[in-house]
Structure formats: C-alpha cells, structure tokens
C-alpha cells in the first residue's frame, strides 16, 4: 500500500512529474522523502496508539479547514468519508471549521515587556451540536487544535490538563500535537510551492532547461 501512496505535497500543490517545481524538489530528496514519511507516520501508523485513524483524519480536516487550505481539507475529509459512518463525522468537522475560522497568529504573551504585542481573538469552543456528534474526546482535540493553529503562544499546562481529563494519554497528546504541527508545515509547503508554480520558472530552472 505504502509504495503506491502518492507524494501528498505534490498531490496537494498540483506538482506534475517533470515540472520545474518537481525538479526543485528533486534537489532536496531527503526533505521530500521525510515529509512524506512524516505524513505516513501520522496517518498510516504502524501502531494506532491512543489515537484512532478516524480521529487523526478529523483533526487534520479541521486544521486544514482553519487554514483555508481547500485541497488539504478535501484530501483529509475524503479519508474520513471512505470509512463507515464517516460522512456525518466529516460534516460535523466542516461545521466546526465554519465556526472556528479566523486570522492568526494572535494571543497573549506570558508577561511584560512583550505584553505590548498581545492581540486578542477568538477562543474557540465546539458547538453543543458538534459535541454530541464528535464526542467529548474529539471535541477536546479540536478545541486544542484551534489553540495551536491560531494562538500557540497561549498554550499552557492547563490546556494539556483539559486533554488529559478528556481521556487523552500523554503519548496520545504528543501524537495529536505532531498532527496539528505537521499540518501547519505541510500546508505551508503546499502554499509556497503552489505559488512558485503559479509564478512560473525563474532563474535556476530556465538556465537548466536551455
């Protein structure tokens, strides 16, 4: 299965084989390989641990939606929908994305003198309807994901305690944090490379092509 999994960054950024962005990525084979291995470690793990594949995909679809990264949001939602009963879960996640959309990063710093840079913004809570559809454990994960996406500087031991109280183990919180944080990376690489692709080849590729 793994061998046939497409390179997700290429897929989401629309990078065709042999295009100039493809050739640029080929200059950094380790980065390309390990970005893909990171995706596989999180979404096709050898051990599910304390976080189910469905939960992994739900968090990813939520995070991608918050980034307004439509290709990524569709990609992860499609993974949810493929599984039994997934359509209603995907719809519930989408509804929470609509409620959670905003612009970041914002948040309070720990103390003066940085307090001058404090910027207030939405503190997201899953809707009552969403809490029923998603359950307490996944709802806690989405609330934490929103914190990490938009106001990571407000993270706290209390935020982790909420996850622990909702049934997340320490190890599962590490995986959850990696999923949200990896998505923050993957989506930005896709955004950046898609912009480069749209801008058309510049100096390096044109010199190589001639």
């Amino acid at each position, binding site marked *: 299965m793994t061998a046939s999994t497409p390179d997700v960054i290429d897929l989401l950024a629309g990078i065709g084989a042999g295009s*100039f*962005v493809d050739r640029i*990525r080929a*200059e*950094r084979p*380790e*980065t390309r*390989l*390990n*970005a893909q*291995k*990171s995706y*596989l*470690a999180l979404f096709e793990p*050898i051990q599910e*641990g304390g976080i189910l594949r469905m939960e992994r995909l739900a968090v990813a679809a939520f995070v991608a939606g*918050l*980034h307004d*990264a439509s290709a990524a949001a569709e990609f992860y939602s499609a993974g949810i929908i493929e599984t039994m009963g997934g359509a209603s879960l995907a719809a519930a996640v989408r509804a929470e994305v609509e409620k959670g959309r905003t*612009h*970041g*990063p914002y*948040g309070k710093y*720990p*103390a*003066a*003198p*940085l307090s001058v*840079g404090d910027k207030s913004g939405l503190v997201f809570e899953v809707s009552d309807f969403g809490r029923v559809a998603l359950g307490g454990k996944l709802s806690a994960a989405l609330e934490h994901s929103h914190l*990490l996406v938009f106001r*990571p*500087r407000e*993270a706290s*031991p*209390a*935020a982790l*305690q909420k996850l*622990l109280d909702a049934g997340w*183990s*320490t190890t599962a*919180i*590490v*995986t959850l*944090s*990696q999923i949200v*944080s990896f998505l*923050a*990376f993957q989506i*930005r690489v896709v*955004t*950046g*490379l898609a*912009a480069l692709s*749209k*801008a058309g*080849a*510049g*100096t*390096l*590729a044109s010199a190589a092509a001639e």
Partner: protein
Amino acid sequence: MSEIAIHPKLERRPSAFTQAEIGWAPWLAPLVEEDLTGRHWAGLVDPSRAKSAYFMLLVRDPEILEARTKTDKDIFHNTAAGLPRADRELSATAASRVNGCIFCASVHSRFASHYSKRTSDVQRLLDEGTDTDLGSRRWNAIVEASVALTATPSAFNEGEIARLRSEGLNDLEISDVIHGAAFFNWANRLMLSLGEPTPAAEA
C-alpha cells in the same frame, strides 16, 4: 484517573526575545532512558538527544519524531546549490518571532547571528518585530516572505516570489526559504504547546 500536567516551578521566566542560551521545561512527562526500546533509539536519530527533555517527550511517538528530525536536518543543513545557512536561520527566526516562540527564536537567532555576523540586525528583529528594517533588502524580503507564510490562513503568494527574485534568489533558494519558514510553524507549535522556556544559567 487521568494523568496530570506538569507545572514547572520557575523563577524569572524568560519574558522577552533573546539570543541568550535559555532552556526548556516540559509540561508532560518525557520518557527516561531505561524505557527506551530499539524503536525509540531509532526515533531519536542521534543518541545524544536522549539528554534532551524535549526529544525524550517527543520520542513517545518515535516514527514521527524520526521522520521529522530528518526533515529538519535536511531543511537547515543541506545548502547544496541553495540558500546559505544564515538566511535559513533568519526565516526560522522570523516565523518564531511571529508565532511567539521565545525558545525557538533564541536558538535560531543565535544561529542567524553566528552565520551572518549581523548580531545587532538580528537583535533588532527580536526587539522590534518583523516589520523592522534589517539593513538589507534581501533580509527584509526573506523576513517578509516568512511572515506572510506564517500567517493563518497563509498570506504568501506570487508577490513574495517576485520580491525574492528581485533580490536575486533563484528558485531553489526560494524553495529553501519556504521550507525554513514552514518547518518552524511545525517546531514552534511543539515547543510552545508541550512546555516552556526556562532562564539562562547564571553566569
């Protein structure tokens, strides 16, 4: 009975961006060396990382740590035909400054200064923020691109590409800027959410 998050008892918590060698304390229990299996050692990549509370916490999920570490090393160290180290460290510092990661900003601003010898320009970025003039159009363009990419939703588009090109960056170097800033959106969120910076050791 759920597990309990750690509340480190700290005097003088770092409260400003700095190039000093500060530390980091976890809010969840790291593994200890006796717990590590072969799978965990593979995840650490460098055995010396067993001395770091951060990596010993992340190694609870060894497969993603291993892949992430190898991504990190290549993005920041593989300069073949691409962007110099100083500029990569600048992109990491800019992303960390925007997200508010005092710890990541300390490490990578120190590297940016080390490779560029432009310590005071780097300090101005920390003190005044990412809008400050760093004394060269090239650095300003790299910071602007990193900031645009770090916004959520991202504000990075062909305008940033054009500006980087006008400063002489080729496409591989632009890709290196993108990866450096994007990677720190990963690193910042782990560092910020799983623990906090601790003061530099007394001189």
